[in-house]
C-alpha cells in the first residue's frame, strides 16, 4: 500500500530554485534485513509511478507497472530484497508536482513548477533512503529515464549503492529522440485547453493534445516488426469491398486511440512536459568535461546493462557506449543484448532471456547480501 511523507527540509534544485517542502509517495515490498543491506531502489521512467508491483486490491484489473520483474521468485525477488518504489518529484500520482498546490499562491503550480533534472530526483530519493534508514542500496535499478537516475546515483552518491542496473537507457538522448519529445510537447501545448499550462485553474484539461503526445510516444516505443506482428493490416471495422464506401478502421488505429485516451484521462499534461524535458536535458558526462570515462571513474559500484535489439529510441549502441566507458574507467560492468521485437517497451514485458539475465545478476547481488549478514 502506498505511503507518503512530507519532507520539510528545503531541496535545492539544479535549476537554482529551491522547493521549500515536498511530498513523496512510495511503496515498499519485502522486508528490510537486520543490517539493512538488502534494499533495492526502483527508479521509474517517463510515465511510471510508485505502484511498481502487485495489486492493491485483488480485484484490480492490472498489477504494478513492473510486476513482471518484481515479486516473490521474480528477478527482483521480494523474498530476498526490500524494494522501494516511489513516485518522483514532479509526478502526478501523489508526489509534489505541477498539479499540486503552490503554497505561495494557493493555486496549482502548473507551468510555474520548477523544471527538474535527474539529479534532483536522485537527491530527493537519497532523502527517502535516509527516512527509511538505508545507508547503502544493494542496488539502484531503472529502465529508460529510470536508468539515467540509476547512473546519476552512481556518480552523485558513489558510496550509497553496491550495484547499478541500467536497462534500455542512454548517457544522453540523440537529436531524433529530442525531436520526438518536442513533437509530443507541441501536441500538448497547442491544444486550446492547455491555457499556457494553467488549465487546472481554468478547470479545463488538454486531453486531446496529451492523447496525441502519448500516441506519438507509443509508436516510437514499439518497433515496426512489433506493430506488424501485433496488428498487421487487420481491420477493426469497415471493408474494402468494391462498391462500398463504408469507413475503414485498422486495428492499429483503434489500439493507439485507446492508448491515447486512457492515458490522457490519468496523467497530468504538465508532468508529461516536465518528464520529457528532464529526458532531453540529461547528459551524464556534461559536468565531467563531456568525458564519460572521467564521469564513471567516480563510480564505486558494479553495473549491469541490458538493451533490446529492436529498441530504436534507446538502441543497443547507447548501452554499448555505457559499457565501453565503464570498461575504460575500470568499473565492473556486465552487459547483455536481448533479442526482442517489442522495441523500447521490451523492458517492461515478459521475455525469457531478459528474465534469466536479470535473475542471474540479482541472485549474485543477493548472495553477496547474504554473506554480509553472516
Amino acid at each position, binding site marked *: 500500500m502506498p505511503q507518503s511523507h512530507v519532507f520539510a527540509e528545503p531541496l535545492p534544485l539544479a535549476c537554482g530554485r529551491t522547493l521549500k517542502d515536498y511530498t513523496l509517495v512510495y511503496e515498499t515490498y519485502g522486508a528490510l534485513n537486520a543490517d539493512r543491506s538488502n534494499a533495492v531502489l526502483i527508479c521509474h521512467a517517463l510515465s511510471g509511478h510508485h505502484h511498481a508491483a502487485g495489486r492493491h486490491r485483488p480485484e484490480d484489473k492490472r498489477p504494478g507497472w513492473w510486476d513482471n520483474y518484481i515479486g516473490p521468485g521474480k528477478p527482483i525477488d521480494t523474498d530476498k530484497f526490500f524494494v522501494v518504489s516511489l513516485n518522483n518529484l514532479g509526478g502526478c500520482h501523489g508526489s509534489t508536482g505541477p498539479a499540486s498546490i503552490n503554497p505561495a499562491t494557493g493555486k496549482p503550480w502548473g507551468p510555474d513548477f520548477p523544471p527538474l533534472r535527474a539529479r534532483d530526483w536522485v537527491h530527493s530519493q537519497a532523502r527517502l533512503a535516509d527516512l527509511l534508514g538505508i545507508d547503502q542500496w544493494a542496488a539502484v535499478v531503472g529502465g529508460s529515464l529510470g536508468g539515467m537516475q540509476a547512473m546519476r546515483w552512481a556518480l552523485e552518491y558513489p558510496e550509497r549503492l553496491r550495484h547499478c542496473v541500467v536497462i534500455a537507457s542512454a548517457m544522453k538522448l540523440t537529436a531524433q529522440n529530442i525531436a520526438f519529445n518536442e513533437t509530443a510537447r507541441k501536441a500538448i501545448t497547442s491544444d486550446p485547453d492547455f491555457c499556457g499550462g494553467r488549465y487546472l485553474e481554468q478547470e479545463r484539461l488538454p486531453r486531446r493534445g496529451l492523447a496525441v503526445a502519448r500516441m506519438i510516444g507509443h509508436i516510437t516505443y514499439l518497433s515496426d516488426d512489433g506493430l506488424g506482428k501485433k496488428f498487421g493490416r487487420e481491420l477493426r471495422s469497415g471493408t474494402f469491398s468494391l462498391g462500398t464506401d463504408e469507413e475503414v478502421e485498422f486495428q492499429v488505429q483503434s489500439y493507439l486511440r485507446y492508448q491515447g485516451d486512457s492515458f490522457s484521462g490519468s496523467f497530468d499534461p504538465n508532468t508529461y512536459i516536465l518528464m520529457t524535458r528532464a529526458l532531453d536535458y540529461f547528459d551524464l558526462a556534461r559536468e565531467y568535461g563531456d568525458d564519460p570515462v572521467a564521469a564513471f571513474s567516480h563510480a564505486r559500484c*558494479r553495473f*549491469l546493462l541490458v538493451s533490446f535489439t529492436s529498441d530504436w529510441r534507446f538502441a543497443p549502441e547507447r548501452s*554499448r557506449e555505457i*559499457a*565501453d566507458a565503464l*570498461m*575504460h574507467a*575500470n568499473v*565492473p*560492468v*556486465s*552487459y*547483455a*543484448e536481448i533479442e526482442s521485437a517489442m522495441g523500447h517497451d521490451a523492458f517492461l514485458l515478459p521475455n525469457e*532471456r531478459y528474465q*534469466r*539475465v536479470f535473475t*542471474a*545478476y540479482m*541472485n*549474485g547481488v543477493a*548472495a*553477496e547480501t547474504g554473506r554480509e549478514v553472516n
Partner: protein
Amino acid sequence: MRIDLDVIQNWIAPESRVLDLGCGDGELLQQLGRNKRISGYGLEIDPAQIERCLERGVSVVEQNLDAGLGNFADGSFDTVVMTQALQTLRQPHLVVREMLRVGRECIITFPNFGQWKARWHLAFSGRMPVSDLLPYEWYDTPNIHFCTFRDFEILCRENNWTILHRQVVSETRIGAAFKDFLPNLCGETAIYHLTR
C-alpha cells in the same frame, strides 16, 4: 580447475587488468579475481554462459569477437586471454593481432589438430576427426579454423610476434609422457604466451 587455466594463472601478474575473450562460464576470471586480485572483463556471446558469469559475479560483456575489438583502446589491458576459441573465429589471425594491440601481452590456448589421434583418425578412417576434445561432426562444428602447434608458430614468426612461453598440455598418460619431446604429435592443448 582445468589444467590450462592453472598454467595461465602463473603468467598473469597480481592486480593487473585482464580481458578474457570467449570467457565461457567465467571460471578463469573468478579464480584470477580471488587469487591474483585482478580486475577484468569477459567477452562472451553464449546466453547460457553469460548467465553463469552473472551469477558468480564475474563481469561479462556480450560482444562477438568476429566483430573485432575496435571498442578497446591500444594497450588498455595488461593481458588479453583467449582459451579454446581461436579455432571458432572467422579470421583468427586478425583477432590475435587485435589482442596484441589491446593488451601488452596475450595468452592463447587452442586444441592441437596435429596431435597423433587426429592424424591417425584422418589417415586411417579418411574422415574428419571426432574425439572427446573435438566432439563435433564436420558440418555442425563451431570449430572452423583448425591449426597445429607448428602452424601457429609459423603465424607468429610471420607477424613478428614474440613467444614468451609455450606450454603443452595432455590429459592422457601417453601424451603426458611424450608431450615435451614431440609436442606437435603428442600435445592436445597448447598454451602460448605472446607479446609484440
